[in-house]
């Protein structure tokens, strides 16, 4: 079992509490707080936690990075912290140096392909790239004659069609046609074509787990404050049972995500075990995100449906995160095919091996 650095988690939590309190952010009149937050995260080394020190990063462990992601979920962080982490990991994996500033990674949807031509130019398109419209760089997984490469691209060089997505963070369409990367390198042999999807899914599962923990706490607290029919609604059995179900969904997401993070952190490369755990976590956490958000809203009633309440900062990100790096259906088909190929009698040994 891997252990994340509690000091690092505490530091992340403190920065986010100070500079990204959802209540303050929600009430802010403009985005002026964003650069301050980003600077604090960057200066503390959190944004490039997964990049070795010699490549400009903080050289933290894989377990640390997932812990940062889980904390970022608990704050519904509206800056590309997770995305920059992921992009940094991809660049570092290929031995590339990491630039400062915000990044995102592409592709996010399983069927999007970006190819690298003989002329050194990219082509292809990726939809739903988180924060693509606002980040400075993109780390791109690309193919040239079946060889996988990682390319660092300046966002300004790409044609980006902005779309706010559910959370307002941006789920933008990026067209790479003709773009010349700033830097490029082959992906090492211990990583496959699904490496970005697996890491992205694991990251999102961690964030979903964190987000669910927070809306469970919010809904639990609200149920104890809100009075209806002359008692706190927490005293109604229907509300208690709804919250028990929310706790169950939260537990499943948290357990699946932390199991996956642990698997990736303790094994070398991203083999079948990482695929299996990441797929299961993204499926189960994605299901939990949908169920959990619905329950949290039901408990909150009308107030939770308003712009001024922070609940939507979480629920809209939960909905968005379940779509990123493969949705439940996409992962489930892949996982189902993997299991079927092994056959009925190999399923239990597979499960027990985790």
């Amino acid at each position, binding site marked *: 079992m891997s252990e994340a650095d509690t000091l690092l988690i505490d530091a992340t939590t403190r920065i986010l509490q100070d500079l990204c309190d959802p209540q303050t952010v929600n009430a802010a009149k403009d985005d002026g707080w964003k650069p301050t937050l980003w600077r604090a995260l960057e200066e503390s080394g959190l944004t490039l936690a997964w990049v070795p020190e010699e490549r400009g990063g903080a050289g933290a462990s894989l377990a640390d990075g997932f812990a940062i992601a889980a904390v970022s979920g608990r704050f519904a962080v509206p800056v590309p912290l997770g995305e920059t982490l992921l992009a940094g990991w991809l660049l570092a994996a290929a031995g590339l140096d990491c630039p400062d500033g915000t990044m995102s990674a592409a592709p996010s949807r399983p069927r999007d392909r970006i190819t690298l031509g003989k002329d050194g130019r990219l082509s292809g398109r990726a939809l739903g790239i988180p924060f693509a419209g606002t980040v400075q760089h993109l780390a791109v997984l690309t193919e040239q004659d079946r060889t996988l490469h990682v390319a660092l691209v300046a966002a300004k060089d790409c044609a980006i069609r902005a779309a706010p997505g559910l959370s307002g963070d941006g789920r933008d369409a990026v067209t790479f046609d003709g773009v010349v990367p700033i830097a490029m390198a082959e992906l090492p042999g211990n990583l496959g074509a699904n490496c970005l999807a697996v890491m992205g899914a694991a990251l999102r599962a961690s964030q979903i787990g964190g987000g669910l923990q927070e809306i469970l706490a919010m809904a639990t607290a609200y149920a104890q404050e809100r009075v209806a029919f002359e008692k706190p609604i927490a005293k109604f059995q229907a509300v208690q049972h709804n919250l028990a179900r929310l*706790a169950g969904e939260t537990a499943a997401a948290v357990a699946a995500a932390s199991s996956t993070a642990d698997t990736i952190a303790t094994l070398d490369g991203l083999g079948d075990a990482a695929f299996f755990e990441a797929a299961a976590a993204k499926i189960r956490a994605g299901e939990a995100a949908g169920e959990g958000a619905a329950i949290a809203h039901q408990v909150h009633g009308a107030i939770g449906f308003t712009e001024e309440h922070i609940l939507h900062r979480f629920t809209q990100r939960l909905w968005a995160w379940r779509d990123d790096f493969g949705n439940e259906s996409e992962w489930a088909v892949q996982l189902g095919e993997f299991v079927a190929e092994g056959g009925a009698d190999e399923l239990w040994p597979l499960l027990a091996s985790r």
Partner: protein
Amino acid sequence: MSQAIHFDPIRLPPEAEELRIEVRAFLAEEIANGGFDPRTTILSSGFDREFSKRVGAKGWIGMTWPKQYGGRERSFLERYVATEEFRVACAPTAAHFTADRQSGPVLLKYAPEHIKQEVLPAITRGECTFCIGMSEPNSGSDLFAASTRATATDGGYLINGTKLWTSNAHQSDFMIGLFRTSPPTKENRRHGLTQFLVRLKQSGITINPVRNMAHKHEFNEVVFEDLFIPEDHILGELDGAWKQATSELAYERSGPERFLETYYVLTELVRVLGNSPDPRAAEGIGRLVAQVHTLRRMSVSVNGMLQAGKEPVLEGSIVKDVGTIWEQTLPDKARSLAAFVDAEPGNRATFDELLQYATTIAPKLTIQGGTTEVLRGIIARGLGLR
């Protein structure tokens, strides 16, 4: 506000994985030499004293208990591995499982020394079957409504009343019974109940079968008429059973048996859907596997945290709630996913037979050992709502 829900990503230690290899070899050999048949075990009560004795001989009953009582002082994670392997193999563990999981630990904690020395080693040898005498005709979910009386008499108590839904009572040697020794008080309606060790093979006890809707004899009605129980058979505090009820609950709620009860349906589903399922079937398998994997990871985590001295009480209850709902809905999901599997003879006969059985027993999975309603109340309490 309550503590955040947490699951340490615990992996099973090497000694547990070594044990798994041993257990698998044992089970494979049992099946090969006709020691038990998985299909028959599923469709029956799974009660086989001879099998239990063979398991006891391997040292796998009460394996976490002190050696002085026949235990092996192994870890709860080792027990976890053995339990899940037995469960998935559909082995007939009914003759020892209750004693192993519930009754033995209660005796260890509350029984006088001479009873421990008498009974615990016999349990570990697989020679001693326990049942649990909690529910009564008017006391199901609400255990503290129990009214079977234990009236003080010379050197002990006389028991009068009726227990109901007592699984395997007709094949058991002992019961741990919950009897009323005093009336409840105004302040505490849970006061006045006491746990007793009951020797079943004597007069004063009538055991009547209660067949279930699958037409199987699993439950019993156990009628006590002036049954004498000696004073030293009291387990724990007189009138204070309510303080003891929670001692082993996190283990009891979070074991692999809380989500693997209908696992055989998933195995057979994967078999009938074949190696190249269409997207509809593949997605269905993928979602089911994601869920069972997650449940197992939750269950391992709770057991590991318990072993490490933590108290994941809320997490344990959640495993049971999510797990029992899942194992209950699994047959319906499997039925739907297999809707287009061709019915040529042999193709799906086993699947259909087991699916039909699982469909029939599914309703009990969210009732036995604490209903979903009661369990969610417990989770709500863990969240600080009650």
